[in-house]
């Protein structure tokens, strides 16, 4: 019975994300920036040249390589895309509290744990689909514009970006379960994102922490030896978000 309810709720979440276009917007925006990254890296010298001509300046950029394309991609996904994703999902649970649709569900024979699990699963599915599309898009365009690149490297790199996005998006769901206001959950998620982005420099042992997960993407580009500790600690953090959300939602009262 529980598993049926879980899949029913999950199905509802996925349909809602598609029909309200939030999930589609998330995937489309990330895919767009995945496509824009190699293109902008490829045309950057031309763009800079035309700007410098109008300003009577001389800016000479080296010939771009596939590395520039990938670095541009990492920057776009982990900065502007993450920011947009936070805005899209900040009301994922808090909006349901605000509007009263949570009450609609919770007076029915639905275990609150299952509701939370369905939310986190839905976000995992959308982040994962997005990661697969991004991997293919950035690989094909980089290959087309810069010549042959190693697909396995792109897959490995995107694995770490996927872990990074999972942490950020799970934090968004967590804050959304913590607060009733969408704005407060959005601001808290953004605060977490900023702290997470800056925290790497604070700890000498950051190579073991989730904050070190993006460094591993750079290690992949440099053909270095990968450290999986940040991935492990990231999953501990993600599971902690889920467990805390379950705890919070079970305490929640419709006041």
């Amino acid at each position, binding site marked *: 019975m529980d598993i049926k309810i879980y899949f029913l709720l999950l199905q509802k979440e996925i349909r809602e994300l598609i029909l309200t276009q939030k999930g589609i917007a998330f995937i489309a925006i990330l895919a767009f920036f995945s496509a824009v990254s190699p293109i902008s890296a490829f045309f950057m010298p031309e763009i800079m040249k035309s700007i410098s001509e109008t300003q009577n300046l001389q800016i000479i950029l080296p010939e771009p390589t596939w590395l520039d394309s990938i670095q541009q991609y990492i920057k776009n996904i982990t900065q502007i895309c993450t920011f947009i994703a936070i805005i899209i999902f900040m009301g994922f649970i808090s909006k349901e509290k605000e509007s009263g649709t949570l009450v609609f569900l919770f*007076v029915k024979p639905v275990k609150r744990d299952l509701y939370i699990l369905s939310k986190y699963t839905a976000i995992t599915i959308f982040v994962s689909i997005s990661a697969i599309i991004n991997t293919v898009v950035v690989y094909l365009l980089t290959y087309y514009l810069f010549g042959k690149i190693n697909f396995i490297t792109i897959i490995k790199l995107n694995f770490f970006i996927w872990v990074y996005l999972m942490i950020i998006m799970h934090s968004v769901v967590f804050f959304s379960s913590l607060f009733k206001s969408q704005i407060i959950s959005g601001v808290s998620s953004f605060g977490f994102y900023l702290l997470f982005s800056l925290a790497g420099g604070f700890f000498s042992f950051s190579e073991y922490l989730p904050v070190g997960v993006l460094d591993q993407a750079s290690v992949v580009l440099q053909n270095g030896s990968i450290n999986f500790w940040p991935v492990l600690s990231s999953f501990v953090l993600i599971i902690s978000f889920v467990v805390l959300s379950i705890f919070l939602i079970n305490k929640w009262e419709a006041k």
Partner: protein
Amino acid sequence: MYYKGEKKPALDNLNLEVPENCIFGFLGPNGAGKTTTIKILTGLMNYNSGDVIIDGEIISKHKIEFRKKIGYLGQEQKMFDWMTGLELLKFTARIFGQSKVEAKNSAEKYLEISGLSAAASKKVKTYSGGMKQRLGIAQALIGNPKILFLDEPTSALDPIGRKEVLDFIYSIRNKCTVFMCTHILADAERICDYVSIINEGKLIEQNSMSNIKSKYSSNLVEISFLNDEDISKFKSLVQNSSDYKIIENNDSSFKIIFNKNVTDYNDFLNLLINAGIKIKFFIEKEPTLEDVFVKLTTK
């Protein structure tokens, strides 16, 4: 039951006994504790002491099982408005454990009952206020609840929507117990069999609608005469009586309140007949629910 930081209880020793298969009106002024009570009864809020027993079971101990026995429509309840009416009811039926086929059949049945079959494939967000409330009641009924909790089901509706919803609620009486919380007394008077009135978190009255009216009847009568001559004769006759008092005079009719010790009106009527006064009509006025409510809730 106390709210955090408040010294005064939100609900104080509130004991309710709700008869089965009736429409039970739960009345009270704003802030009396109606919504708090309904949220406690539906398991949406915790409480400090006491228990809610429905169908012989303490709800806090079997929350999931209990929720199979209830239906709930909150005040201006939001539903998943990106779904169609049919999808929403199917989804709700599946939550109650129905198979896909059963859920479809139930959804179609309740759309029919609520008069929404024609709008089945329209998105809920396109529904009018009255349609949303009827759909809300339909989704609350789909699990065949023993008790249907309705929190201010008509407060946000225009007169037509209100009529539609009240007719719908009236049509489901005897199928389950309807626990309706409202501050619109005319609605309660129209459809409720039993009412309870709370004020400041305390129960102040609970009875059947007919009993409550007779209990608070105030020996009020209205009398009307055929002509001016009868009116002046009447006025001169009834002055200085200790048994009754004219409280309102409107053209040819008078509202008279009799003392509590007057058990019938025979002496009064004989007096008028013997004086040759011709009576157009004589009616004992029943108090409205509003009269009772105002009497009980104003200090």
